[in-house]
């Protein structure tokens, strides 16, 4: 397999955050003296060395709001092969992996998505924290090993230090609760085999930049580092995540049903806790 695996991505993420970002400092030193373009060039060289990134909206298209309504919860949509969802699954232009980079965040690599080779995923929407005005990049790797990039800009401030929830209320479901929500087919499109669903997991996804209210010490980073969704045994997508994914990680995606009817979600966080849920996606409420 070309490119690198999730672990390598995480390693790269930490290496980058430590080398270029003064390790955890909220105001990256580079922001003052590197232009947004220089920042991206540095990131791209480190993450995709010696590779050419081509802009092609039919392969990968990134959707972000121009300004974050809520910096701790910025919706990001990845469209893969969206002009041609019925492209053969083994077509060289099919996207098999997408890396989401939030250039100015303390840990720029927000997530790496691996797409199932039989799932035909053309859309993944998630929510991220954005710490300051930043360019956002999605880099897609296609079946033929080529890399494509889509860029956008988000105006935001402070999303990485926004407190995680649940410190003061016990109202919600417990940490680790996974919910599978099916989107009504009539809302998606007319293709009976193409489905859309939401996987959400209750988890503070602590960034390590949030202070504990009792001790005034910073809460160590604890976040979902991997999450995998399959139908039967066939992968729909797997994601390797970092601290830029918002509290209560949420993934909305489309896929081509293989008829098994059962979806399986498994996830693990950085504390080593594992979470899982099997079952049909719940119908919409």
């Amino acid at each position, binding site marked *: 397999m070309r490119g690198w695996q999730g672990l390598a991505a995480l390693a790269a993420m930490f290496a980058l955050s430590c080398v270029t970002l003064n390790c955890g400092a909220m105001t990256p030193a580079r922001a003052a003296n590197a232009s947004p373009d220089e920042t991206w060039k540095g990131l791209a060289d480190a993450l995709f060395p010696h590779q050419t990134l081509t802009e092609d909206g039919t392969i990968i298209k990134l959707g972000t709001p121009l*300004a974050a309504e809520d910096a701790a919860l910025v919706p990001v949509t990845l469209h893969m092969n969206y002009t041609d969802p019925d492209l053969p699954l083994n077509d060289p232009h099919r996207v098999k992996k997408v890396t989401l980079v939030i250039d100015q965040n303390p840990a720029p690599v927000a997530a790496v998505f691996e797409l199932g080779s039989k799932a035909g995923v053309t859309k993944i929407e998630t929510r991220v924290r954005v710490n300051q005005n930043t360019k956002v990049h999605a880099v897609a790797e296609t079946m033929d090993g080529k890399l494509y990039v889509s860029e956008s800009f988000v105006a935001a401030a402070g999303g990485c230090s*926004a407190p995680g929830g649940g410190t003061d209320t016990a109202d919600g479901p417990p940490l680790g609760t996974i919910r599978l929500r099916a989107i009504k087919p009539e809302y998606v499109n007319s293709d009976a085999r193409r489905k859309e669903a939401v996987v959400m997991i209750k988890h503070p996804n602590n960034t390590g930049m949030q202070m504990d209210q009792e001790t005034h010490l910073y809460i160590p980073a604890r976040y979902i580092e991997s999450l995998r969704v399959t139908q039967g045994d066939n992968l729909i997508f797997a994601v390797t995540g970092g601290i830029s994914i918002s509290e*209560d990680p949420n993934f909305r995606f489309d896929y081509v049903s293989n008829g098994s009817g059962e979806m399986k979600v498994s996830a693990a966080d950085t504390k080593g806790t594992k979470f899982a849920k099997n079952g049909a996606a719940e119908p919409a409420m």
Partner: protein
Amino acid sequence: MTKRLTLLTALTLLGATLIGGLRPAYGENAASAPLPVHEIAPGVYAHQAPVTAMNAASGGDIANLGFIVGDDAVAVIDTGGALVIGERLKKAIEAVTHKPVRYVINTHEHPDHIFGNAAFVAPGVTFVGHKNLPRAMAERGPAYLATWRRVMTPNLVDGIKLVPPTLLVGTDKDVRLDLGHRVIDLHAWPPMHTDCDVTIFDEKTATLFTGDLVFLQHVPVIDASVLGWMKAMPALAKIPAKRVVPGHGTIDVDWPQALAAEKTYFTKLTQDLRGFIARGADINQAAKEAGQSEASKWQLFGIYNPRNATAGYAELEWQ
């Protein structure tokens, strides 16, 4: 349940467009004059700030402030969005009484309410707030300050200090402060507007300072939990106040009628969001469309309703 940064994005955008084009609303004289206040009940004073976005043009003066004078001492309620606003509030106090300020109460963490704190730092002055307020200030204060530096003129940023409370109000027990034949009751609320909201009730005149638990004219900003806000509203309405000073909008209004407008807004917004979630609409569509039937009733709706809808969608999706 969730707590998020508010104001900042809108501020960034507004500030970027306004800072170059408009002059501050206050000239040299007004910039140091006592802040205008009204005695809305004997010994109870309130400043009604304009309903406008926080930017250099509004000069740090967008939140209602007040003070209560007892026989022995004064309690200040919020200090404004710049040191100069705090200083002008101090002058307004000195113009009506020689009694010392003993307490400075911050109704919550937002910068338009706390950035004038430094004007009151002195021996014998105790800062008071919700038990969560020190954490909120520590976590978000630096980001708020960074935003201020971007969107405000330097004179509005100079001297701002994060002054956390040392007398804390827990949600389990009210704190009663005696100002001399005048007791004010401080109640700390569960997550509503923020996760550190405190209300102040003057028992002598039945005047309630709600902080940002009540918005009038200015669309409510939900920075903690819309469900929590709605859930706690009956308890809030039960406070036997004769008049209230909201955090934003017209001061000295009837109670609990002052809650009606925001209750309607929350009801519409959550109804819309539930509908969008049930139908399968995504969070982007909800941000654009939820609550829009309320648009004509509120100011600053275009700035804050989309963020309320975004945060509300994520909260309600778990219901």
